[in-house]
């Protein structure tokens, strides 16, 4: 494995940076050469299957505690010190619960749905670079792979909702699928700007393209006008894609009980829960890869900290942001959701593509230099900001509600 060129650091920091890769190689070398790639692959898979569910367990308790703090409560604090063992209690509870399959349910599809969902979401981690040289399956079209896998989770959600033979489940599934299809378009289009600028679909190449520093600041895409707009659109679409608040209509408790997993209990319910959080983490991971420099350090003087630490630090920040939004925003209505997807997100992401292209060619025409750079920056930011304000005003105008009139009272 070749380390990135231009990455200079002392011996022990590079060892620490590559510690997991080195361990993988050492363990694989214990086996005969024929088996070595397989052993390395299995070790990588085991790593992912161990680490991300562990983060999921931690996230559930941290989310509940964080939400509690945002609502001036303490949150769970009974199981273990500061309630940190709550996931254990939850796991034991969900494993010992009775596994209920409704009598009229389609048993096979009902069983397959959570399995397919979790498998598909785990597959999405295969091409996610979680550190320097730390990607399970370095394929050329990694981002396409992720979106393809993400698209196939919709089917398992439909399977869950349809096979339960429950109107709430079916409605929840239909809402979820409609929402995911609608927001997949802006999600893909907002990711395309990063792909365009890198000229590659490979996550590693995208991270590498964001490497390097000017002064102390990194070359992350989020620091450009199109990158920032793309990142914001990606975050909103990711929230909708993972059914997180404020886009959690598919599981709106007040009207749909629990949406598509109403009829699931015990371990299968836990699988859905796991799938939801793993999906959130993987989409956050790709957002980090595409716009936030992946495993790169945010300042040049902090580059000695291992790359995987940066990745997981950013991942935790992203998860915290998701929790923060959940603690803040109320749920949208279905018509608001669709309006927002097709009348705001889609035009904005299309415009963003145009701006990214313009950025590229303006850079060639204007040449280098601080003045040219500033003009390019301001022009792109002005186009995006102006459109944002105009489209936003149009969105808000539609929402204005007149004084309520009564037909019989008064």
């Amino acid at each position, binding site marked *: 494995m070749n380390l990135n060129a231009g990455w200079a650091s002392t011996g022990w920091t590079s060892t620490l940076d590559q510690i997991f890769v080195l361990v993988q190689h050492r363990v694989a070398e214990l086996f005969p050469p024929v088996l070595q790639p397989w052993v390395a692959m299995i070790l990588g898979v085991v790593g992912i299957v161990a680490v991300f569910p562990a983060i999921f367990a931690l996230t559930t308790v941290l989310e509940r505690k964080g939400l509690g703090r945002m609502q001036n409560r303490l949150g769970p604090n009974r199981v273990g010190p500061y309630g940190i063992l709550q996931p254990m209690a939850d796991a034991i509870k969900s494993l010992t619960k009775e596994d209920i399959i409704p009598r009229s349910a389609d048993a096979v599809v009902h069983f397959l749905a959570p399995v397919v969902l979790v498998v598909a979401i785990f597959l999405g981690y295969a091409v996610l670079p979680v550190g320097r040289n730390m990607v399970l399956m370095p394929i050329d*079209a990694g981002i396409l792979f992720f979106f393809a896998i993400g*698209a196939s989770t919709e*089917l398992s959600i439909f399977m869950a909702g*349809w096979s339960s033979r429950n109107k709430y489940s*079916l409605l929840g599934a*239909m809402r979820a699928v409609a929402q995911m299809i609608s927001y*997949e378009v802006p999600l893909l289009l907002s990711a395309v700007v990063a792909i365009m600028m890198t000229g*590659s679909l490979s996550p590693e190449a995208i991270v590498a393209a964001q490497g390097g520093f000017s002064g102390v600041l990194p070359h992350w895409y989020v620091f450009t006008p199109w990158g920032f707009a793309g990142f914001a659109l990606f975050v909103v679409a990711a929230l909708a894609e993972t059914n997180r608040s404020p886009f959690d209509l598919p599981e709106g408790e007040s009207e749909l009980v629990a949406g598509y997993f109403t009829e699931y209990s015990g371990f299968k319910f836990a699988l859905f829960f796991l799938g939801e959080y793993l999906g959130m983490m993987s989409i956050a991971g790709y957002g980090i890869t595409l716009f936030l420099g992946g495993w790169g350090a945010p300042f040049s003087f902090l580059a000695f900290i291992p790359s995987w630490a940066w990745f997981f630090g950013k991942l935790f920040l992203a998860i915290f942001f998701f929790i923060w939004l959940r603690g803040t925003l109320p749920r949208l209505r279905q018509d608001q959701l669709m309006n927002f997807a097709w009348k705001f997100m889609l035009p904005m992401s299309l415009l963003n593509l145009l701006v990214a292209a313009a950025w590229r060619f303006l850079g060639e025409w204007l040449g280098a230099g601080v003045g040219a750079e500033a003009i390019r920056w301001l022009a792109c930011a002005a186009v995006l900001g102006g459109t944002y304000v105009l489209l936003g005003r149009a969105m808000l105008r539609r929402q204005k509600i007149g004084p309520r009139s009564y037909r019989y009272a008064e």
Partner: protein
Amino acid sequence: MMHAAFFLTFAVLTLAGAVAAALLRNLVHCALSLTVTFAGLALLYLSLGAEFVGLTQVLVYIGAVAILVVFAILLTRGSGSLPRQMLSSSGWRVGWLAAVAVGFVLVAALRDAPFAQSQGNAPVVSVKEIGQALMGPFALPLEIVGVLLTVALIGAVIVAMPEKPMLENPVLKNQMPEKQGGAE
């Protein structure tokens, strides 16, 4: 050896999905087994080294077409199991005979056909080269596909749009018979 095992697994998956789609009575089950076929085909493409096509297959067929089929089934109230006589059209024996005959002829012809086969490795085509080809020599087909997809999008929306009630349609309004009065 390994490759043969993979090929056999994927081929069996593909064909089993297609057979299930042909025989199952519940339309949603048919659609789901169709998805299995699509997934098997994607795996076959991947095993052939056509990474980009395989992933596109997953994105378009599993992510979009299968969902579309499922939505269409639910919108047309077809999610229940059909009675046996509703399953196949009246001439199903002839239909299957024709299909099996076509399959038999194709397989027999292919088995002995002398194709010039290169035994080398899969041609390496990076995503970048695909992009350059699409923007270079294949720009015109790309544009045409773009136009086609736009037309299909608009056409599908218009076709599936709720029809106006007859009274609001100016053409049909004049052809409406006079209202029969005196109904009590």
